[in-house]
Protein backbone atom coordinates (compact mmCIF):
# COMPACT_ATOMS: atom_id res chain seq x y z
CA UNK A 1 0.00 0.00 0.00
CA UNK A 2 2.67 2.44 1.03
CA UNK A 3 4.80 1.97 -2.03
CA UNK A 4 1.71 2.50 -4.12
CA UNK A 5 0.67 5.72 -2.48
CA UNK A 6 4.06 7.31 -2.80
CA UNK A 7 4.97 5.92 -6.18
CA UNK A 8 4.37 9.21 -7.94
CA UNK A 9 6.27 11.15 -5.30
CA UNK A 10 9.20 8.75 -5.76
CA UNK A 11 9.11 9.22 -9.49
CA UNK A 12 9.32 12.99 -8.96
CA UNK A 13 12.19 12.52 -6.55
CA UNK A 14 13.93 10.29 -9.02
CA UNK A 15 13.65 12.88 -11.77
CA UNK A 16 14.86 15.59 -9.41
CA UNK A 17 17.85 13.58 -8.26
CA UNK A 18 19.00 12.69 -11.73
CA UNK A 19 18.53 16.11 -13.30
CA UNK A 20 19.12 19.25 -11.30
CA UNK A 21 17.59 21.39 -14.08
CA UNK A 22 14.31 19.46 -13.98
CA UNK A 23 14.34 19.63 -10.18
CA UNK A 24 14.77 23.40 -10.08
CA UNK A 25 12.12 23.85 -12.78
CA UNK A 26 9.64 21.70 -10.84
CA UNK A 27 10.40 23.55 -7.61
CA UNK A 28 9.72 26.95 -9.22
CA UNK A 29 6.44 25.70 -10.70
CA UNK A 30 5.35 24.22 -7.35
CA UNK A 31 6.24 27.52 -5.67
CA UNK A 32 3.99 29.42 -8.09
CA UNK A 33 1.22 26.84 -7.58
CA UNK A 34 1.47 27.31 -3.80
CA UNK A 35 1.40 31.10 -4.21
CA UNK A 36 -1.70 30.76 -6.39
CA UNK A 37 -3.44 28.78 -3.64
CA UNK A 38 -2.57 31.03 -0.72
CA UNK A 39 -2.96 34.39 -2.51
CA UNK A 40 -6.75 34.80 -1.97
CA UNK A 41 -6.26 34.19 1.76
CA UNK A 42 -3.11 36.19 2.48
CA UNK A 43 -3.29 38.92 -0.15
CA UNK A 44 -6.80 39.38 -1.52
CA UNK A 45 -6.35 41.20 -4.83
CA UNK A 46 -8.41 44.15 -5.96
CA UNK A 47 -9.22 45.20 -2.40
CA UNK A 48 -8.28 48.81 -1.71
CA UNK A 49 -5.10 48.72 0.31
CA UNK A 50 -6.50 50.74 3.21
CA UNK A 51 -3.98 53.50 2.93
CA UNK A 52 -3.98 56.17 0.23
CA UNK A 53 -0.88 54.79 -1.48
CA UNK A 54 -1.70 55.30 -5.16
CA UNK A 55 1.14 54.56 -7.58
CA UNK A 56 3.55 54.10 -4.67
CA UNK A 57 6.88 52.44 -5.38
CA UNK A 58 7.94 49.19 -3.73
CA UNK A 59 7.99 49.37 0.06
CA UNK A 60 7.87 46.94 2.97
CA UNK A 61 4.10 47.26 3.06
CA UNK A 62 3.73 46.79 -0.71
CA UNK A 63 6.82 44.92 -1.95
CA UNK A 64 5.76 45.34 -5.61
CA UNK A 65 4.26 48.82 -5.14
CA UNK A 66 0.68 49.87 -5.89
CA UNK A 67 -1.13 50.74 -9.12
CA UNK A 68 -3.26 53.71 -10.18
CA UNK A 69 -6.24 52.31 -8.25
CA UNK A 70 -4.17 51.89 -5.09
CA UNK A 71 -4.22 48.10 -5.52
CA UNK A 72 -1.28 46.01 -4.37
CA UNK A 73 0.71 44.92 -7.44
CA UNK A 74 2.07 41.80 -5.69
CA UNK A 75 -1.49 40.61 -5.06
CA UNK A 76 -2.40 41.27 -8.69
CA UNK A 77 0.68 39.44 -10.02
CA UNK A 78 -0.05 36.44 -7.79
CA UNK A 79 -3.70 36.47 -8.85
CA UNK A 80 -2.51 36.34 -12.46
CA UNK A 81 -0.89 32.92 -11.88
CA UNK A 82 -4.26 31.31 -12.55
CA UNK A 83 -4.24 32.66 -16.13
CA UNK A 84 -0.61 31.60 -16.62
CA UNK A 85 -1.37 28.05 -15.49
CA UNK A 86 -4.94 27.51 -16.71
CA UNK A 87 -4.79 28.89 -20.25
CA UNK A 88 -1.60 27.16 -21.53
CA UNK A 89 -2.53 23.87 -19.82
CA UNK A 90 -6.06 23.94 -21.23
CA UNK A 91 -4.72 24.75 -24.69
CA UNK A 92 -2.13 21.95 -24.61
CA UNK A 93 -4.57 19.34 -23.24
CA UNK A 94 -7.11 20.28 -25.90
CA UNK A 95 -4.38 20.13 -28.53
CA UNK A 96 -3.29 16.65 -27.39
CA UNK A 97 -6.90 15.43 -27.39
CA UNK A 98 -7.28 16.53 -31.03
CA UNK A 99 -3.77 16.34 -32.43
CA UNK A 100 -2.65 12.94 -31.14
CA UNK A 101 -5.56 10.92 -32.58
CA UNK A 102 -5.32 12.89 -35.84
CA UNK A 103 -1.57 12.26 -36.16
CA UNK A 104 -1.99 8.61 -35.18
CA UNK A 105 -4.79 8.06 -37.70
CA UNK A 106 -2.85 9.78 -40.48
CA UNK A 107 0.24 7.72 -39.70
CA UNK A 108 -1.71 4.45 -39.64
CA UNK A 109 -3.80 5.09 -42.76
CA UNK A 110 -0.75 6.39 -44.62
CA UNK A 111 -0.84 6.88 -48.37
CA UNK A 112 -2.51 9.87 -49.95
CA UNK A 113 -4.61 10.89 -46.92
CA UNK A 114 -1.44 11.13 -44.86
CA UNK A 115 0.37 13.13 -47.54
CA UNK A 116 -2.50 15.61 -47.91
CA UNK A 117 -2.73 16.09 -44.14
CA UNK A 118 1.02 16.58 -43.82
CA UNK A 119 0.95 19.27 -46.52
CA UNK A 120 -1.95 20.96 -44.77
CA UNK A 121 -0.07 20.99 -41.45
CA UNK A 122 3.09 22.18 -43.16
CA UNK A 123 1.16 25.00 -44.84
CA UNK A 124 -0.30 26.17 -41.54
CA UNK A 125 3.17 26.14 -39.98
CA UNK A 126 4.53 28.29 -42.83
CA UNK A 127 2.76 31.27 -41.28
CA UNK A 128 4.74 32.36 -38.20
CA UNK A 129 2.59 30.79 -35.43
CA UNK A 130 3.40 33.58 -32.98
CA UNK A 131 1.60 35.98 -35.37
CA UNK A 132 -1.11 33.59 -36.57
CA UNK A 133 -2.34 33.01 -33.00
CA UNK A 134 -3.30 36.64 -32.30
CA UNK A 135 -4.66 36.96 -35.85
CA UNK A 136 -6.97 33.98 -35.20
CA UNK A 137 -8.11 35.55 -31.92
CA UNK A 138 -8.82 38.83 -33.72
CA UNK A 139 -10.87 36.87 -36.26
CA UNK A 140 -12.94 35.15 -33.58
CA UNK A 141 -13.19 38.26 -31.41
CA UNK A 142 -11.03 39.05 -28.35
CA UNK A 143 -11.64 36.76 -25.36
CA UNK A 144 -9.78 34.26 -23.17
CA UNK A 145 -11.82 31.36 -24.54
CA UNK A 146 -10.94 32.32 -28.13
CA UNK A 147 -7.29 32.57 -27.13
CA UNK A 148 -7.45 29.02 -25.76
CA UNK A 149 -9.06 27.80 -29.00
CA UNK A 150 -6.50 29.57 -31.22
CA UNK A 151 -3.54 28.28 -29.18
CA UNK A 152 -4.99 24.76 -29.07
CA UNK A 153 -5.55 24.74 -32.84
CA UNK A 154 -1.92 25.64 -33.56
CA UNK A 155 -0.57 23.27 -30.88
CA UNK A 156 -2.76 20.47 -32.22
CA UNK A 157 -0.96 20.77 -35.56
CA UNK A 158 2.37 20.43 -33.75
CA UNK A 159 1.24 17.36 -31.81
CA UNK A 160 -0.24 15.76 -34.92
CA UNK A 161 3.11 16.22 -36.69
CA UNK A 162 5.05 14.75 -33.74
CA UNK A 163 2.66 11.80 -33.55
CA UNK A 164 2.79 11.22 -37.31
CA UNK A 165 6.59 11.17 -37.22
CA UNK A 166 6.63 8.74 -34.27
CA UNK A 167 4.20 6.35 -35.95
CA UNK A 168 6.21 6.53 -39.18
CA UNK A 169 9.39 5.69 -37.25
CA UNK A 170 7.67 2.63 -35.79
CA UNK A 171 6.32 1.61 -39.20
CA UNK A 172 9.77 1.80 -40.74
CA UNK A 173 11.09 -0.85 -38.35
CA UNK A 174 8.14 -3.12 -39.18
CA UNK A 175 6.49 -2.60 -35.81
CA UNK A 176 2.98 -2.09 -37.17
CA UNK A 177 3.13 -4.84 -39.79
CA UNK A 178 4.56 -7.25 -37.24
CA UNK A 179 1.71 -6.69 -34.83
CA UNK A 180 -0.92 -6.85 -37.57
CA UNK A 181 0.58 -10.12 -38.84
CA UNK A 182 0.29 -11.53 -35.33
CA UNK A 183 -3.44 -10.80 -35.42
CA UNK A 184 -3.45 -7.88 -33.01
CA UNK A 185 -6.71 -5.93 -33.27
CA UNK A 186 -6.65 -2.24 -34.16
CA UNK A 187 -7.77 -0.91 -30.75
CA UNK A 188 -5.19 -3.15 -29.05
CA UNK A 189 -2.50 -2.10 -31.54
CA UNK A 190 -3.16 1.55 -30.73
CA UNK A 191 -3.65 1.28 -26.97
CA UNK A 192 -1.09 -1.38 -26.04
CA UNK A 193 1.58 -1.12 -28.71
CA UNK A 194 1.59 2.29 -30.36
CA UNK A 195 0.67 4.72 -27.56
CA UNK A 196 3.25 3.48 -25.01
CA UNK A 197 5.99 3.50 -27.64
CA UNK A 198 5.22 7.02 -28.82
CA UNK A 199 4.63 8.39 -25.32
CA UNK A 200 8.26 9.33 -24.66
CA UNK A 201 8.52 11.55 -27.72
CA UNK A 202 5.19 13.12 -26.91
CA UNK A 203 5.78 13.70 -23.20
CA UNK A 204 9.16 15.27 -23.84
CA UNK A 205 7.51 17.91 -26.03
CA UNK A 206 4.85 18.92 -23.50
CA UNK A 207 6.80 21.37 -21.26
CA UNK A 208 8.06 23.21 -24.35
CA UNK A 209 4.59 23.42 -25.85
CA UNK A 210 3.19 24.74 -22.55
CA UNK A 211 5.98 27.34 -22.47
CA UNK A 212 5.15 28.38 -26.04
CA UNK A 213 1.44 28.68 -25.22
CA UNK A 214 2.30 30.78 -22.15
CA UNK A 215 4.47 33.22 -24.12
CA UNK A 216 2.00 33.46 -27.00
CA UNK A 217 -0.97 33.97 -24.67
CA UNK A 218 0.99 36.79 -23.00
CA UNK A 219 1.51 38.37 -26.44
CA UNK A 220 -2.23 38.06 -27.16
CA UNK A 221 -2.92 39.89 -23.88
CA UNK A 222 -0.19 42.43 -24.67
CA UNK A 223 -1.93 43.24 -27.98
CA UNK A 224 -5.18 43.79 -26.08
CA UNK A 225 -6.86 40.66 -27.47
CA UNK A 226 -6.97 38.66 -24.23
CA UNK A 227 -9.08 39.31 -21.14
CA UNK A 228 -10.70 42.72 -20.65
CA UNK A 229 -8.50 45.64 -19.63
CA UNK A 230 -7.92 45.66 -15.88
CA UNK A 231 -7.59 41.86 -15.68
CA UNK A 232 -4.65 40.43 -13.73
CA UNK A 233 -3.36 38.48 -16.75
CA UNK A 234 0.33 39.37 -17.05
CA UNK A 235 0.39 40.32 -20.76
CA UNK A 236 -2.62 42.60 -20.21
CA UNK A 237 -0.97 44.13 -17.12
CA UNK A 238 2.22 44.79 -19.11
CA UNK A 239 0.21 46.38 -21.94
CA UNK A 240 -1.38 48.82 -19.53
CA UNK A 241 1.97 49.51 -17.85
CA UNK A 242 3.80 50.16 -21.12
CA UNK A 243 3.76 53.96 -20.95
CA UNK A 244 4.11 54.44 -17.16
CA UNK A 245 6.88 51.82 -16.87
CA UNK A 246 9.11 53.89 -19.15
CA UNK A 247 8.27 57.01 -17.14
CA UNK A 248 9.54 55.94 -13.72
CA UNK A 249 6.65 53.66 -12.71
CA UNK A 250 8.70 50.60 -13.57
CA UNK A 251 7.14 48.36 -10.91
CA UNK A 252 3.81 48.28 -12.77
CA UNK A 253 5.35 46.34 -15.67
CA UNK A 254 8.60 44.83 -14.43
CA UNK A 255 7.02 42.54 -11.82
CA UNK A 256 4.42 40.89 -14.08
CA UNK A 257 7.18 40.56 -16.70
CA UNK A 258 9.49 38.91 -14.16
CA UNK A 259 6.75 36.47 -13.15
CA UNK A 260 6.14 35.58 -16.79
CA UNK A 261 9.85 34.96 -17.38
CA UNK A 262 10.17 32.86 -14.19
CA UNK A 263 7.37 30.48 -15.18
CA UNK A 264 8.70 30.22 -18.74
CA UNK A 265 12.21 29.58 -17.43
CA UNK A 266 10.94 26.85 -15.09
CA UNK A 267 9.19 25.14 -18.01
CA UNK A 268 12.35 25.39 -20.15
CA UNK A 269 14.44 23.88 -17.32
CA UNK A 270 11.94 21.05 -17.01
CA UNK A 271 12.04 20.46 -20.77
CA UNK A 272 15.85 20.48 -20.87
CA UNK A 273 16.04 18.15 -17.87
CA UNK A 274 13.60 15.69 -19.40
CA UNK A 275 15.51 15.71 -22.70
CA UNK A 276 18.77 15.00 -20.88
CA UNK A 277 17.18 12.16 -18.90
CA UNK A 278 15.82 10.60 -22.05
CA UNK A 279 19.15 11.03 -23.82
CA UNK A 280 20.97 9.41 -20.89
CA UNK A 281 18.62 6.44 -21.11
CA UNK A 282 18.94 6.13 -24.86
CA UNK A 283 22.68 6.53 -24.50
CA UNK A 284 23.31 9.47 -26.79
CA UNK A 285 25.10 12.69 -26.07
CA UNK A 286 22.05 14.80 -25.52
CA UNK A 287 19.02 14.45 -27.73
CA UNK A 288 17.50 16.67 -30.34
CA UNK A 289 16.15 19.86 -28.88
CA UNK A 290 13.35 21.14 -31.05
CA UNK A 291 13.78 24.81 -31.89
CA UNK A 292 11.34 27.28 -30.44
CA UNK A 293 8.39 27.46 -32.79
CA UNK A 294 8.21 31.14 -33.48
Amino acid sequence: MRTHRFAQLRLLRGVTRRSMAAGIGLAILLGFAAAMVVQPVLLPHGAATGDVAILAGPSLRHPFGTDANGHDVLARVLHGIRYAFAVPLAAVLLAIAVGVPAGMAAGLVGGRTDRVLQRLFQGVMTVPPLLLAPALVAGMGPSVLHAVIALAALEAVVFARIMGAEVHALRRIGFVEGNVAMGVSLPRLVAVHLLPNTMAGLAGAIPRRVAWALATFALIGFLGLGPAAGATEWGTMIRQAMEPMLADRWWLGVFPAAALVMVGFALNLLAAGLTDLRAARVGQAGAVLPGAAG
Partner: protein
Amino acid sequence: MERWGRSILRRLGLLAVLLLVVLFLAFLLPRLGAAPPVVMLGGATAPPAAQAQLRAEYALDQPVPVQFIRFVVRMASGDWGRSWLTGAAVGADLLARTPATLELMLYAIMLGSLLGVPLGVTAALNHSRPEDRTLRGVALLFEAMPAFVLALLLLVLLFSWLGVAPAPSGRLSIMLSPPPHVTGSYFIDAILMQDGAGARSALSQLALPVVCLALLVAAALVVQVRQAILVQRDTGHFAHARAQGMSRDMLGSIALRGAAPAIATAIGGQLVALFAATAVVEYVFSWGGIGQLGLDSIARADFAVVQGFILYGALFTMVVQVLTHLATLGFRVRVRRA
Protein backbone atom coordinates in the same frame (compact mmCIF):
# COMPACT_ATOMS: atom_id res chain seq x y z
CA MET B 1 22.56 18.49 -62.28
CA GLU B 2 19.49 16.72 -63.66
CA ARG B 3 18.66 15.46 -60.19
CA TRP B 4 18.86 19.02 -58.95
CA GLY B 5 16.47 20.20 -61.64
CA ARG B 6 13.87 17.62 -60.76
CA SER B 7 14.21 18.33 -57.06
CA ILE B 8 13.73 22.06 -57.71
CA LEU B 9 10.57 21.39 -59.76
CA ARG B 10 9.15 19.15 -57.04
CA ARG B 11 9.89 21.82 -54.43
CA LEU B 12 8.18 24.52 -56.51
CA GLY B 13 5.07 22.36 -56.74
CA LEU B 14 5.15 21.86 -52.98
CA LEU B 15 5.50 25.60 -52.40
CA ALA B 16 2.41 26.24 -54.55
CA VAL B 17 0.41 23.79 -52.43
CA LEU B 18 1.64 25.40 -49.20
CA LEU B 19 0.76 28.87 -50.54
CA LEU B 20 -2.77 27.67 -51.26
CA VAL B 21 -3.11 26.51 -47.63
CA VAL B 22 -1.81 29.88 -46.41
CA LEU B 23 -4.24 31.74 -48.69
CA PHE B 24 -7.07 29.65 -47.30
CA LEU B 25 -6.04 30.57 -43.73
CA ALA B 26 -5.90 34.25 -44.69
CA PHE B 27 -9.31 33.95 -46.39
CA LEU B 28 -10.71 32.34 -43.23
CA LEU B 29 -9.52 35.00 -40.76
CA PRO B 30 -12.25 37.64 -41.24
CA ARG B 31 -14.86 34.86 -41.42
CA LEU B 32 -14.17 33.30 -38.00
CA GLY B 33 -17.13 34.95 -36.35
CA ALA B 34 -16.00 38.14 -34.58
CA ALA B 35 -18.63 39.88 -36.70
CA PRO B 36 -20.20 39.29 -40.13
CA PRO B 37 -17.78 40.60 -42.80
CA VAL B 38 -20.26 43.27 -43.85
CA VAL B 39 -20.41 44.63 -40.30
CA MET B 40 -16.59 44.57 -40.07
CA LEU B 41 -16.39 46.56 -43.31
CA GLY B 42 -19.19 49.06 -42.81
CA GLY B 43 -19.81 49.11 -39.06
CA ALA B 44 -22.89 47.83 -37.23
CA THR B 45 -24.97 50.90 -38.04
CA ALA B 46 -24.49 51.00 -41.82
CA PRO B 47 -27.83 51.47 -43.64
CA PRO B 48 -29.08 48.49 -45.70
CA ALA B 49 -28.30 50.23 -48.98
CA ALA B 50 -24.66 50.75 -47.96
CA GLN B 51 -24.47 47.12 -46.80
CA ALA B 52 -25.82 45.90 -50.13
CA GLN B 53 -23.24 48.02 -51.93
CA LEU B 54 -20.43 46.59 -49.78
CA ARG B 55 -21.71 43.04 -50.41
CA ALA B 56 -21.58 43.66 -54.13
CA GLU B 57 -18.21 45.41 -54.01
CA TYR B 58 -16.53 42.65 -51.98
CA ALA B 59 -18.51 39.86 -53.71
CA LEU B 60 -19.91 38.80 -50.34
CA ASP B 61 -23.19 37.86 -52.05
CA GLN B 62 -21.42 35.05 -53.94
CA PRO B 63 -21.13 31.49 -52.60
CA VAL B 64 -18.11 31.00 -50.30
CA PRO B 65 -16.11 28.79 -52.72
CA VAL B 66 -16.50 31.45 -55.41
CA GLN B 67 -15.37 34.10 -52.90
CA PHE B 68 -12.28 32.02 -52.16
CA ILE B 69 -11.38 31.55 -55.82
CA ARG B 70 -11.81 35.28 -56.44
CA PHE B 71 -9.61 35.96 -53.40
CA VAL B 72 -6.86 33.64 -54.66
CA VAL B 73 -6.98 35.13 -58.16
CA ARG B 74 -6.89 38.68 -56.79
CA MET B 75 -3.95 38.02 -54.46
CA ALA B 76 -2.06 36.08 -57.15
CA SER B 77 -2.49 38.95 -59.61
CA GLY B 78 -0.73 41.22 -57.12
CA ASP B 79 -3.76 43.19 -55.96
CA TRP B 80 -3.58 42.80 -52.18
CA GLY B 81 -6.50 45.11 -51.48
CA ARG B 82 -6.80 48.27 -49.41
CA SER B 83 -6.75 48.80 -45.65
CA TRP B 84 -10.26 48.87 -44.20
CA LEU B 85 -9.27 51.72 -41.90
CA THR B 86 -6.88 53.97 -43.87
CA GLY B 87 -7.62 52.97 -47.45
CA ALA B 88 -3.89 52.57 -48.16
CA ALA B 89 -2.96 49.91 -50.74
CA VAL B 90 -1.74 46.91 -48.72
CA GLY B 91 0.84 45.59 -51.17
CA ALA B 92 2.47 48.99 -51.76
CA ASP B 93 2.45 49.75 -48.02
CA LEU B 94 4.11 46.44 -47.14
CA LEU B 95 6.72 46.95 -49.85
CA ALA B 96 7.49 50.51 -48.75
CA ARG B 97 8.01 49.37 -45.15
CA THR B 98 10.19 46.39 -46.04
CA PRO B 99 13.61 48.12 -45.79
CA ALA B 100 12.95 49.23 -42.20
CA THR B 101 12.18 45.65 -41.16
CA LEU B 102 14.91 44.00 -43.21
CA GLU B 103 17.47 46.33 -41.67
CA LEU B 104 16.52 45.18 -38.15
CA MET B 105 16.46 41.52 -39.14
CA LEU B 106 19.77 41.48 -40.99
CA TYR B 107 21.72 43.23 -38.22
CA ALA B 108 20.03 41.00 -35.63
CA ILE B 109 20.79 37.72 -37.42
CA MET B 110 24.42 38.75 -37.95
CA LEU B 111 25.00 39.91 -34.38
CA GLY B 112 23.03 36.96 -32.99
CA SER B 113 25.05 34.43 -35.00
CA LEU B 114 28.36 36.08 -34.08
CA LEU B 115 27.34 35.75 -30.44
CA GLY B 116 25.46 32.46 -30.45
CA VAL B 117 27.63 30.19 -32.62
CA PRO B 118 30.96 30.65 -30.72
CA LEU B 119 29.16 30.38 -27.37
CA GLY B 120 27.41 27.20 -28.51
CA VAL B 121 30.75 25.70 -29.59
CA THR B 122 32.29 26.71 -26.24
CA ALA B 123 29.44 25.05 -24.37
CA ALA B 124 29.78 21.83 -26.36
CA LEU B 125 33.57 21.62 -25.98
CA ASN B 126 33.13 22.06 -22.22
CA HIS B 127 30.29 19.53 -22.09
CA SER B 128 28.87 19.18 -18.54
CA ARG B 129 31.46 21.51 -17.04
CA PRO B 130 30.45 24.72 -15.23
CA GLU B 131 30.93 26.78 -18.44
CA ASP B 132 28.44 24.56 -20.24
CA ARG B 133 25.92 24.64 -17.39
CA THR B 134 26.11 28.42 -17.07
CA LEU B 135 25.79 29.06 -20.81
CA ARG B 136 22.88 26.68 -21.10
CA GLY B 137 21.16 28.14 -18.06
CA VAL B 138 21.48 31.70 -19.37
CA ALA B 139 20.29 30.58 -22.82
CA LEU B 140 17.22 28.91 -21.31
CA LEU B 141 16.48 32.08 -19.32
CA PHE B 142 16.59 34.27 -22.45
CA GLU B 143 14.55 31.73 -24.40
CA ALA B 144 11.87 32.13 -21.71
CA MET B 145 11.55 35.84 -22.50
CA PRO B 146 8.84 36.79 -24.96
CA ALA B 147 10.26 39.42 -27.34
CA PHE B 148 8.05 42.21 -25.98
CA VAL B 149 9.15 41.45 -22.42
CA LEU B 150 12.86 41.55 -23.25
CA ALA B 151 12.34 44.76 -25.28
CA LEU B 152 10.54 46.48 -22.41
CA LEU B 153 13.03 45.28 -19.78
CA LEU B 154 15.93 46.60 -21.89
CA LEU B 155 14.09 49.91 -22.29
CA VAL B 156 13.47 50.25 -18.54
CA LEU B 157 17.13 49.49 -17.84
CA LEU B 158 18.88 51.45 -20.61
CA PHE B 159 16.40 54.25 -21.38
CA SER B 160 14.58 54.99 -18.10
CA TRP B 161 17.25 54.14 -15.54
CA LEU B 162 20.63 54.60 -17.19
CA GLY B 163 19.52 57.05 -19.86
CA VAL B 164 22.01 55.71 -22.42
CA ALA B 165 19.42 54.58 -25.01
CA PRO B 166 17.11 56.92 -26.94
CA ALA B 167 13.33 56.85 -26.55
CA PRO B 168 11.48 54.11 -28.48
CA SER B 169 10.18 56.60 -31.03
CA GLY B 170 11.01 54.89 -34.31
CA ARG B 171 13.99 54.89 -36.61
CA LEU B 172 15.30 58.42 -36.16
CA SER B 173 15.34 61.09 -33.46
CA ILE B 174 12.11 63.11 -33.75
CA MET B 175 14.27 66.23 -34.21
CA LEU B 176 15.66 64.98 -37.54
CA SER B 177 14.09 64.38 -40.92
CA PRO B 178 14.80 61.14 -42.80
CA PRO B 179 17.59 61.15 -45.43
CA PRO B 180 16.61 60.88 -49.12
CA HIS B 181 15.63 57.34 -50.11
CA VAL B 182 18.47 55.32 -51.64
CA THR B 183 18.60 51.90 -49.98
CA GLY B 184 15.78 52.49 -47.50
CA SER B 185 18.13 52.01 -44.54
CA TYR B 186 18.27 55.36 -42.73
CA PHE B 187 21.76 54.54 -41.41
CA ILE B 188 23.28 53.73 -44.82
CA ASP B 189 21.40 56.51 -46.60
CA ALA B 190 22.60 59.09 -44.05
CA ILE B 191 26.20 57.90 -44.51
CA LEU B 192 25.82 58.16 -48.30
CA MET B 193 24.59 61.75 -47.86
CA GLN B 194 27.52 62.43 -45.48
CA ASP B 195 24.93 63.35 -42.85
CA GLY B 196 26.84 62.62 -39.62
CA ALA B 197 24.09 63.58 -37.19
CA GLY B 198 21.54 61.52 -39.13
CA ALA B 199 23.78 58.45 -39.22
CA ARG B 200 24.54 58.70 -35.49
CA SER B 201 20.86 59.06 -34.65
CA ALA B 202 19.84 56.16 -36.91
CA LEU B 203 22.52 53.97 -35.34
CA SER B 204 21.50 54.80 -31.77
CA GLN B 205 17.83 54.12 -32.60
CA LEU B 206 18.85 50.79 -34.13
CA ALA B 207 21.00 49.69 -31.19
CA LEU B 208 18.40 48.58 -28.68
CA PRO B 209 15.96 46.71 -30.95
CA VAL B 210 18.87 44.99 -32.70
CA VAL B 211 20.49 43.95 -29.39
CA CYS B 212 17.13 42.68 -28.16
CA LEU B 213 16.56 40.52 -31.26
CA ALA B 214 20.20 39.38 -31.37
CA LEU B 215 20.00 38.18 -27.75
CA LEU B 216 16.94 36.09 -28.61
CA VAL B 217 18.69 34.64 -31.68
CA ALA B 218 21.88 33.94 -29.72
CA ALA B 219 20.02 32.19 -26.91
CA ALA B 220 18.35 29.79 -29.34
CA LEU B 221 21.57 29.26 -31.31
CA VAL B 222 23.65 28.40 -28.22
CA VAL B 223 21.36 25.45 -27.52
CA GLN B 224 21.17 24.28 -31.14
CA VAL B 225 24.85 24.72 -32.03
CA ARG B 226 25.88 22.96 -28.81
CA GLN B 227 23.67 20.06 -29.84
CA ALA B 228 25.06 19.95 -33.39
CA ILE B 229 28.65 19.82 -32.07
CA LEU B 230 27.82 17.15 -29.49
CA VAL B 231 26.47 14.93 -32.27
CA GLN B 232 29.79 15.33 -34.11
CA ARG B 233 31.63 14.22 -30.97
CA ASP B 234 30.09 10.77 -31.35
CA THR B 235 31.24 10.25 -34.95
CA GLY B 236 34.02 7.89 -35.98
CA HIS B 237 36.32 10.49 -37.56
CA PHE B 238 36.16 12.63 -34.44
CA ALA B 239 37.12 9.66 -32.23
CA HIS B 240 39.94 8.92 -34.67
CA ALA B 241 41.22 12.49 -34.49
CA ARG B 242 41.07 12.41 -30.71
CA ALA B 243 42.91 9.07 -30.62
CA GLN B 244 45.65 10.67 -32.71
CA GLY B 245 46.10 13.18 -29.93
CA MET B 246 45.04 16.27 -31.84
CA SER B 247 44.89 19.55 -29.94
CA ARG B 248 41.65 20.95 -28.53
CA ASP B 249 41.53 23.66 -31.17
CA MET B 250 41.97 21.14 -33.98
CA LEU B 251 39.25 18.93 -32.51
CA GLY B 252 37.01 21.96 -32.28
CA SER B 253 37.53 22.86 -35.92
CA ILE B 254 36.89 19.26 -37.03
CA ALA B 255 33.63 19.18 -35.09
CA LEU B 256 32.66 22.60 -36.43
CA ARG B 257 33.22 21.50 -40.03
CA GLY B 258 31.05 18.43 -39.57
CA ALA B 259 28.36 20.45 -37.83
CA ALA B 260 28.29 23.19 -40.50
CA PRO B 261 25.12 22.01 -42.30
CA ALA B 262 23.25 21.67 -39.00
CA ILE B 263 24.43 25.13 -37.92
CA ALA B 264 23.37 26.66 -41.26
CA THR B 265 19.95 25.07 -40.81
CA ALA B 266 19.74 26.45 -37.25
CA ILE B 267 20.59 29.98 -38.43
CA GLY B 268 17.97 29.68 -41.19
CA GLY B 269 15.46 28.58 -38.58
CA GLN B 270 16.30 31.61 -36.47
CA LEU B 271 15.84 33.91 -39.46
CA VAL B 272 12.36 32.45 -39.89
CA ALA B 273 11.63 32.92 -36.17
CA LEU B 274 12.96 36.48 -36.41
CA PHE B 275 10.03 37.53 -38.61
CA ALA B 276 7.61 37.19 -35.71
CA ALA B 277 10.05 38.47 -33.06
CA THR B 278 10.87 41.52 -35.18
CA ALA B 279 7.19 42.30 -35.55
CA VAL B 280 6.79 42.31 -31.77
CA VAL B 281 9.91 44.40 -31.20
CA GLU B 282 8.80 46.87 -33.90
CA TYR B 283 5.47 47.20 -32.11
CA VAL B 284 7.24 48.15 -28.85
CA PHE B 285 9.72 50.52 -30.52
CA SER B 286 7.17 52.13 -32.94
CA TRP B 287 9.56 51.10 -35.70
CA GLY B 288 7.16 51.67 -38.58
CA GLY B 289 8.10 48.52 -40.52
CA ILE B 290 5.88 45.73 -41.78
CA GLY B 291 5.81 44.07 -38.34
CA GLN B 292 4.35 47.06 -36.56
CA LEU B 293 1.82 47.54 -39.36
CA GLY B 294 0.84 43.86 -39.11
CA LEU B 295 0.41 43.77 -35.32
CA ASP B 296 -1.40 47.13 -35.28
CA SER B 297 -3.77 45.76 -37.92
CA ILE B 298 -4.33 42.54 -35.95
CA ALA B 299 -5.14 44.57 -32.82
CA ARG B 300 -7.53 46.77 -34.83
CA ALA B 301 -9.09 43.90 -36.81
CA ASP B 302 -8.11 45.51 -40.14
CA PHE B 303 -8.19 42.21 -41.96
CA ALA B 304 -7.29 43.42 -45.43
CA VAL B 305 -3.86 44.31 -44.02
CA VAL B 306 -3.71 41.21 -41.79
CA GLN B 307 -4.25 38.98 -44.84
CA GLY B 308 -1.41 40.66 -46.70
CA PHE B 309 0.81 40.47 -43.62
CA ILE B 310 0.13 36.74 -43.11
CA LEU B 311 0.89 36.02 -46.76
CA TYR B 312 4.04 38.16 -46.58
CA GLY B 313 5.21 36.22 -43.51
CA ALA B 314 4.57 32.88 -45.21
CA LEU B 315 6.44 33.97 -48.35
CA PHE B 316 9.36 35.12 -46.22
CA THR B 317 9.43 31.75 -44.42
CA MET B 318 9.41 29.88 -47.73
CA VAL B 319 12.21 31.94 -49.25
CA VAL B 320 14.43 31.49 -46.20
CA GLN B 321 13.71 27.77 -46.09
CA VAL B 322 14.61 27.33 -49.74
CA LEU B 323 17.83 29.34 -49.30
CA THR B 324 18.74 27.32 -46.20
CA HIS B 325 18.12 24.11 -48.09
CA LEU B 326 20.35 25.25 -50.95
CA ALA B 327 23.08 26.24 -48.48
CA THR B 328 23.07 22.80 -46.85
CA LEU B 329 23.08 21.19 -50.31
CA GLY B 330 26.22 23.20 -51.02
CA PHE B 331 27.83 21.79 -47.88
CA ARG B 332 26.87 18.27 -48.87
CA VAL B 333 28.36 18.67 -52.34
CA ARG B 334 31.62 19.74 -50.75
CA VAL B 335 31.53 16.71 -48.47
CA ARG B 336 30.81 14.40 -51.41
CA ARG B 337 33.71 15.82 -53.46
CA ALA B 338 36.19 15.61 -50.59
